[in-house]
């Protein structure tokens, strides 16, 4: 697995803010992500869903260049905005990558309780990202901007709050601060990794709303990782379904949720009470996907889902090809599935 330079056709779409092509990630002997390809356009919000251990977070970390030590990425990741000559980010050095992070693209993590430095005032933590990328001329200007940013994420008394320490804030407040950091330099791409999972239900909706408002105001592209299909339905326009380190289905949220093709997507939707929940309100009544996600690197050859799939046949032992489902402006990887026994409208 070596980085091969793909120069032209893969990045044909000039509107794409982020284009990921054939991204693979692995440890020395365990492949973890296989040939992940997708693009996100300006102002577009794309959801990435799947169970824990399917490779969602790894995708995000690979794009950010923040993979844990010992993992290697190959393929092609390009960011249109503010990257010199639209180079493959997987090839650039740490110094240059650091210039992109927090500026051209930024990320909100899952755990607001531990994402902030406990020994630094939150205002200073927000100001740091602006001073680092020199988007504010002076410390004083950055400090003024901090108050504006905190106000924008609906934090009460932002001037006072900027001088407090993280432990004096609630989880929801901390996540707003993290969001303010991520949006401080008006990034072209915002990646959110389950930003509301750790929050109380009552706070989740407001934080989601802030995320969407912040992204819309900047016309930024967003990659939104979650295992909560309801959140995807309200936040995103397009969805990518991931399992076993592969994208198994993709398409507009409405189409995919109303009429899933891949059996895994079907299972996911059946297991959430997105649809047909009228008769059964309790969670216990929900059907589950049989079996559990295999440990990393232990997914089967061929279709990664076949060991848990009721429809699996011998044909599934070879890797199912990507079947485009219809035309999509973002290319054929944006709408289709990889299943030889698809559910729903007809078999191809």
């Amino acid at each position, binding site marked *: 697995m070596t980085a091969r330079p793909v120069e032209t056709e893969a990045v044909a779409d000039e509107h794409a803010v982020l284009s990921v092509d054939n991204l693979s990630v692995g440890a020395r002997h365990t492949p973890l992500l296989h040939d992940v390809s997708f693009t996100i356009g300006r102002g577009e919000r794309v959801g990435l869903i799947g169970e824990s251990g399917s490779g969602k977070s790894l995708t995000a970390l690979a794009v950010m260049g923040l993979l844990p030590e010992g993992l290697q990425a190959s393929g092609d990741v390009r960011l249109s905005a503010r990257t010199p000559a639209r180079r493959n980010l997987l090839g650039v050095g740490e110094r240059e990558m650091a210039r992109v992070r927090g500026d051209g693209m930024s990320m909100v993590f899952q755990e607001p309780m531990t994402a902030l430095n406990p*020994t630094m005032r939150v205002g200073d933590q927000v100001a740091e990202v602006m001073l680092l*990328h020199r988007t504010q001329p002076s410390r004083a200007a950055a400090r003024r901007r901090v108050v504006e940013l905190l106000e924008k994420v609906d934090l009460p008394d932002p001037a006072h709050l900027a001088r407090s320490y993280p*432990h004096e804030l609630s989880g929801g407040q901390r996540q707003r601060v993290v969001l303010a*950091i991520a949006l401080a330099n008006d990034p072209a791409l915002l990646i959110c990794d389950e930003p509301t999972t750790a929050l109380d239900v009552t706070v989740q909706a407001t934080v989601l709303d802030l995320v969407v408002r912040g992204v819309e105001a900047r016309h930024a592209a967003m990659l939104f990782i979650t295992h909560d299909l309801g959140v995807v339905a309200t936040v995103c326009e397009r969805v990518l379904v991931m399992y076993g380190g592969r994208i198994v289905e993709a398409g507009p949220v409405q189409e995919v949720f109303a009429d899933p093709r891949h059996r895994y997507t079907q299972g996911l939707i059946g297991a959430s009470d997105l649809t047909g929940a009228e008769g059964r309100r309790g969670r216990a009544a929900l059907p589950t996907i049989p079996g559990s996600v295999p440990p990393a690197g232990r997914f089967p050859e061929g279709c990664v889902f076949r060991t848990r799939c009721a429809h699996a046949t011998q044909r599934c032992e070879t890797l199912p090809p990507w079947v485009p489902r219809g035309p999509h402006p973002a290319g054929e990887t944006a709408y289709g599935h990889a299943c030889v026994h698809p559910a729903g409208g007809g078999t191809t």
Partner: protein
Amino acid sequence: MLLRFLHRLMVLVASVAAASVVVFAFMRVLPGDPARVALGINASEQAVAQLREQFGLDRPVLVQYLDWVGGLLTLDPGIEFVSKAAIGPQIADRLQVTLWLVVCAMVLALVLALPVGIWMAVRHRHWDGVVLSALSQVGVAVPAFLAGIVLISVFAVRLGWVPSGGWVVPAEDPVGFLQRLALPVVSLSLVQAAVLARYVRSAVLDVLREDFLRTARAKGLRPVQALVRHGLRNAAVPVVTVLGLQLATLLIGAVVIERVFVIPGLGSLLLDSVAKRELLTVQAVVMVLVVAVLFINFVVDVLYLVIDPRLRTAPR
């Protein structure tokens, strides 16, 4: 913050008071008769009785204790049984010498341990990190006095660069002072540095795993920048704890090192007094050392408050 500081101060005062009771009870009540101990078993009953009367050892224990504490508070712990020499000035003299040793050794140990420990943590998956880590593990196992003996045999006996021991006052002979200071300080600090470096390593390793360091990277800080700006202050809390403990062991380690290098410090005074059975002196020196240890703990606790804002408000 102020409240927490005052609370710590009260704990310090209470601990010192408790320690004074322990020391007094141990040295004065337990053996029964310090005068007999001082004069030896061959002394006449009359001589012993005379000494007891002279030092007020025939008074009630509580009176004796209050008298002793009063003496300590006025920095006058009395005179020796046999020589009648004043104890206070001796301790003051010797303390200076020991402080030179301990402070220099601590500074040297820190200067060595911080970079090495951080390096071991950052490179813990690489061969150099592993080798350094193994070396530090060996360093921890070498007692300071053994390091001292080895250093003497190489630098004093074989090479003859420095004297093998003794002491001169820095103002009189600065070069001779530094020559005599070098080996004991190095032998004390090498071992301390090994211990400290291991703690620095593990504290930095813990911090490297923290989410907020990933946030810092996501902001655009390079790994080293992220560690320096966000990591080190957080790693400082466990390191400061160990620093306090190490300073205490250093103080006690100096007792042995002074013996190795024939240095007239507090440790030598303690050991000489033990040999001479001068319990009053032993008692006073022990008290000085214990108060020093307790005071170091107090400083460490106050440092926590400075480093970690969470502790300033968190209830106990």
